[in-house]
């Protein structure tokens, strides 16, 4: 491990310990030290680590990040609820806003929730009744040892805790907004969120990571979100990663599913200099269904990595995966889709598709579907494609008078449109449509959404 990284680590933990001295429960202190020790012993991933083959983290580790300070949350006076609306979208439901990793109650809005349901800051929950959270908070990095997840376990202070009682439906999306302010000093935050969906419950969670601020400085978000679905629970998780292009973003979405539960994830990766959004799903009881969708659009020199791991542990589970990449400039997109069918997971039905569109000669995509099957009587399919815009379609559009640049935009938008249509929350869809459209060459007229009403 690089000397910078090690000294930063030591600094981070000792600061946290002195700051939280007397606040953290003993179990939490133990957890932090154990996770920290793990990182010290095992180090950060290098190019030799198969799972990190495409993403070099040296640039992150060499940056002298300082821990974010809660006081800064208050200092960002320009931040208003309206500013959050335009940065992250106004989805109408409960919204928790975190500034540089810390809960900002003034910017958040808590709507009435069904009886027994909880949506609150994790820091507050830990202060109240920490013990019950212990097994949950220590699990992800213990089960899938991973330096950044361990670092998050060692240093996380805040995030969201969402608990939905059995047979309870939360209609409006719960919006978690993680806003980072790239100041003069590079800062790091370790948001930690936990979603506990009771049996037969239903909820939609939207996680937005967005950068703001005027100085254009670098910052690092190292997030872990865990979603546990009890029997028959239905959870949709949307993630919009729109950090500034000087930021680093490493995130783990860790999901476990019980019998007959349904989980759907859609990740939209637009921002960051280097970003890695990893999704791990464990289908551990029969009848569980999972759908992972993703869109990544690196441009300039952005590097956007999307590793996914779906573990079919129990029989009769279904998984579907569709990831699409649009790579422009000298951007690099990575899709590393790993599906494991464990012994005994018979009648597994898994399919995975990855499609990529390269918009420039220097754009790069690495796509790696990996299927490991240790059970008989399973149905597994995968496909990957990398291509350019269809020349015949370009000529067709241009022959009708649509300028070359607009034709490119139109075809690119068509490629992306399939992913946008998967966003079931309308307010979120229109927010993401705008973000995506602003990154594409002008199409000459307003977005096609306006034509939906023209259908007879």
């Amino acid at each position: 491990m690089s000397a910078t990284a090690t000294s930063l680590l030591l600094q981070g933990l000792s600061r946290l310990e002195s700051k939280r001295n007397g606040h953290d429960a003993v179990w939490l202190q133990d957890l932090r030290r154990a996770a920290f020790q793990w990182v010290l012993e095992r180090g950060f991933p290098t190019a030799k680590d198969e799972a990190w083959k495409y993403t070099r983290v040296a640039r992150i580790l060499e940056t002298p990040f300082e821990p974010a300070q809660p006081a800064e949350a208050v200092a960002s006076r320009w931040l208003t609820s309206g500013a959050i609306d335009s940065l992250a979208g106004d989805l109408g439901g409960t919204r928790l806003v975190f500034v540089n990793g810390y809960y900002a109650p003034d910017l958040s809005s808590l709507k009435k929730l069904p009886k027994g349901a909880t949506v609150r800051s994790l820091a507050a929950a830990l202060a109240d009744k920490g013990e019950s959270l212990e097994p949950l908070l220590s699990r992800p990095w213990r089960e899938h040892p991973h330096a950044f997840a361990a670092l998050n376990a060692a240093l996380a202070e805040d995030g969201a805790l969402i608990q939905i009682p059995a047979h309870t439906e939360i209609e409006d999306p719960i919006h978690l907004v993680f806003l980072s302010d790239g100041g003069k000093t590079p800062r790091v935050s370790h948001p930690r969120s936990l979603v506990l969906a009771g049996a037969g419950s239903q909820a939609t969670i939207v996680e937005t990571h967005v950068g703001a601020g005027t100085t254009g400085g670098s910052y690092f978000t190292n997030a872990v979100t865990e979603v546990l679905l009890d029997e028959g629970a239905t959870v949709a998780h949307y993630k919009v990663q729109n950090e500034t292009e000087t930021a680093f973003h490493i995130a783990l979405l860790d999901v476990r599913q019980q019998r007959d539960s349904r989980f759907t994830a859609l990740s939209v990766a637009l921002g960051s200099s280097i970003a890695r959004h990893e999704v791990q799903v464990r289908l551990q009881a029969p009848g569980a269904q999972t759908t992972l969708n993703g869109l990544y659009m690196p441009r300039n020199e952005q590097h956007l990595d999307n590793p996914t791991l779906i573990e079919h542990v129990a029989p009769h589970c279904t998984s579907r995966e569709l990831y699409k990449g649009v790579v422009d400039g000298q951007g690099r997109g990575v899709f590393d889709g790993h599906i494991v069918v464990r012994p005994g997971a018979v009648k597994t039905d898994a399919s995975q598709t990855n499609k990529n569109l390269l918009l420039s000669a220097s754009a790069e995509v690495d796509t790696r579907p990996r299927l490991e099957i240790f059970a008989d009587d399973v149905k597994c399919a995968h496909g990957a494609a990398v291509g350019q815009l269809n020349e015949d379609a370009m000529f067709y559009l241009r022959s009708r008078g649509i300028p070359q640049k607009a034709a490119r935009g139109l075809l690119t938008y068509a490629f992306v449109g399939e992913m946008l249509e998967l966003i079931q929350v309308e307010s979120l869809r229109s927010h993401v449509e705008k973000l995506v459209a602003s990154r594409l060459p002008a199409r000459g007229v307003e977005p096609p959404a306006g034509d939906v009403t023209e259908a007879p």
Partner: protein
Amino acid sequence: MLQIRNLHVKVGGKEILRGLSLEVRAGEVHAIMGPNGSGKSTLAQVLAGHENYDVTGEVLYQGKDLLALSPEERAVAGVFLAFQYPVEIPGVGNLYFLRTALNALRKQRGLEELDAMDFLAVAKERMKLVEMDQSFMSRSVNEGFSGGEKKRNEIFQMAVLEPTLAILDETDSGLDIDALRVVARGVNALRSQDRAMLVITHYQRLLDYIVPDRVHVIANGRIVRSGDKDLALELEKHGYAGFEQGGVAGATP
């Protein structure tokens, strides 16, 4: 309106058109007939501005050098190609596509762009011309359309974009007799004093419905014979065999 002089076209080093010349005046409909591989479709593609060809010679359209223009500039100038094989474009709505195209043309011509409602009114009216079902409008461009539906869609686009020079590339291929009648009626409705048409076809059948002012036979990359509509009937009777041999002989320097 259109003057083609000594047009030579190569693709991948192979010469397809070998000194083709043709003149079409405003208001006229010219049929271009010829056997497979004679260069008919290449002519259509070159006139629309396809970039895969190596082109020499001169093409004047309304007195201007057509070959110097990009495909979209040609469209703005009023050139339209009804494709032999219309391209399927998943994810782009038919109506959205056509409105984008019409507004691109209008913008370049200094006209006000049409909003969705005004455009819809125009589209609905022109759709009737080719008896197109409105359900096609909300579908992706040509995606999952039958051969006949695709061809109707081409003529529908032509009716909306109102070109000055329309090139119909084997619009009759793959059509049954009813669809052929519908398409031909659409084309005939668009005939006018200010509009010229080049109708490219392998078979005489289409010309029963779209009666041309002139008929040209193309073989081995050049026009080997021109005449009035009766020439098409003659071809129907005797085939292209005689022309092909003649063409080969004529092409040898």
